[in-house]
């Protein structure tokens, strides 16, 4: 199987504190890979490094065997990697429809066009409508994103992330702060929307992780202490000690 994402000896320091230490990680194409670990372990930082928001202090990051470390976020996005944010990060003054459409425009090749009427592009309308339907926000189409409920905003966050059609998706705690019912719906959504794509997901809810992931990596204090199938991780004593505790025992 070919690899989607590969990290080789990646490090990241903020000043004197090394937040990511010598992380090597491989995510295969089409795999759903969960990244777990305690608060402050560096999971979001790792996402920031992969998505180009930050540049690693050392090591290299590859997307489908091509180096992407050092590229700008939009360059990485154009190569087919898209990410969501732990803290909702949408276009608050624009409607749900406009939010999703912004995420569709580049991928449909309209780029910086200033000679086309954006409302009349059939493939943009079609694709935006599909995503809108997928994230169950048809009824909220014309509401400014800032006025949505928390769960709706999280759904929109996922919608924007997948709208461009990227085949490598990074989701940072998509269900954080959701009720049990909302979480179930969100997981169903994620499962469906990432069908046939590569998914790297940060998640604290262990039932979500073990239900969704093909493989799991555990990050503690900026280091990957274990990587394997859900069964391997469940049985790993080091993981139990450092993170899972009694929870998964």
């Amino acid at each position, binding site marked *: 199987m070919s690899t989607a994402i590969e990290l080789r000896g990646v490090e990241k320091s903020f000043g004197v504190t090394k937040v990511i230490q010598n992380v090597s990680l491989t995510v295969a194409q089409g795999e759903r890979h969960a990244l777990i670990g305690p608060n402050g372990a560096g999971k979001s930082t790792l996402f920031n490094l992969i998505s180009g928001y930050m540049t690693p202090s050392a090591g290299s990051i590859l997307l489908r065997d091509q180096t992407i470390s050092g590229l700008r976020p939009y360059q990485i996005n154009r190569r087919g990697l898209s990410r969501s944010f732990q803290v909702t990060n949408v276009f608050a003054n624009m409607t749900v*429809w406009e939010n999703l459409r*912004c995420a569709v*425009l580049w991928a449909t090749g309209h780029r910086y066009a*200033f000679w086309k009427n954006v409302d009349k592009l059939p493939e943009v309308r079609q694709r935006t409508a*599909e995503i809108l*339907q997928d994230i169950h926000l048809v009824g909220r189409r014309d509401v400014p994103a800032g006025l949505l409920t928390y769960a709706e905003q999280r759904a929109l966050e996922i919608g924007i992330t997948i709208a461009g059609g990227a085949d490598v998706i990074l989701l940072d705690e998509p269900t954080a702060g959701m009720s049990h019912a909302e979480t179930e719906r969100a997981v169903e959504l994620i499962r469906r929307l990432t069908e046939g794509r590569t998914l790297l997901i940060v998640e604290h809810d262990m039932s979500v992780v073990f239900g969704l992931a093909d493989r799991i990596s555990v990050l503690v204090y900026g280091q990957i202490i274990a990587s394997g199938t859900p069964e391997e991780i469940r049985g790993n004593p080091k993981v139990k000690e450092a993170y899972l505790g009694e929870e998964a025992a």
Partner: protein
Amino acid sequence: MRDLAATAAPPLPALADKLKFYAIWVVVALVLLLLPKLFATGGSLTTFSLIGISIIFALSYNILLGQTGMLSFGHAVYYGLGGFLAIHAINIIGANKWPIPLPLVPLIGGVTGLFFAALIGWVSTQRSGTAFAMISLGLAELVASSALILRTFFGGEAGVSANRTKLLKVFGFNFGPQIQIYYLVAAWTLIAVIAMYALTRTPLGRMCNAVRDNPERVQFVGYDPHVVRYLAFCFAGFFAGIAGSLAAINFEIANSAYLGAVQSGTVLFAAYIGGIGFFIGPIVGAIFVTVLSLGLSDLTTVWQLYFGLFFIAVVMFAPGGITGLLMMHRPLIKAGMLTRMLPSYLIALLPTLALITGLMLAIETTVHYTVNPGEDPHVKAFGIPFNAASSITWLVAAALIVGGFALARISWRRTAHVWDETLTAARAKVHAT
């Protein structure tokens, strides 16, 4: 593939809506055509021309501020350079007898604005927010000061003048009389407004809004916010150049004031006072500011002071500008409940007017004592004579300010209360139907 666009997407405008939309532009064109028939004096034609120019300029500014979220303190640079190039172009075309008529000269100004925006913008749009604002200010100072140094091109203090009637005639127009200039400006205003409106509806226009809202996230949907800002900047420069060259044609002169800080400040005022959150905001603001500055300067010597105070009041109490205030009332109008607000407005307006009158009296008295203290204290402001030396005047001013302020505070609070209730009722009513 599912055909969802039909159900989930916003409906495409129906034929009736489209016709309505085009009808608006036709009506606007007709109004522009007939305006000189209603107000035929040379003075009003000049006013209309100036309004048209400032509409283009303010809208071009709003491509930056309102659409893309870039606060520029130096937009007059592109206006001014467009103006200078237009004047030089008129002179060169006239001297060489080239077959280029005057109506095409604004295009030269526009391309000039575009050229310099493309040159300067690549650097200044690297950053947004405060950094962009500071760079724009610095560059504006740079260009304004070089205008006084490079005398051959900018003409020093006096500026450069030209004779617009020396160019190729079109349909017998030589563009000497003001009425012909009015029509020239009106035509360009209509074209520029339509073009800038269309720009807001394009992929680039929408990504400008996205960059304004959240430049960080834009990067993660494939867009380089720098390029978006840069392109917006180029368009803004282009239309500013058109406005500047129309001004140059109107006055037959371009001087360093065209590119100065005052001009840059005025366009910010106009756009903001009108309301940067709406496409028509800067149009409203441009009309308002032009009429006000022409009118006020006849009535009082310190009109810029009033202007500044008014601007502060808008920023503090109506950040959406005039258009924002009007648009706020849309839900009430829809529910037919606007009349419920009128009594409160009238009650609040009285003490507010008293406060304003008191302030004006105090300002004009102070101006008398600071600017020309030796002169006769029987002065006139806004056409009303009063005695600046009389203690009665001072007492009246003080009473109006103190009493007006206290009552205005109370009555506006009440109004706000009534507003909340009315809005809630209006929403409920619209929902119910």
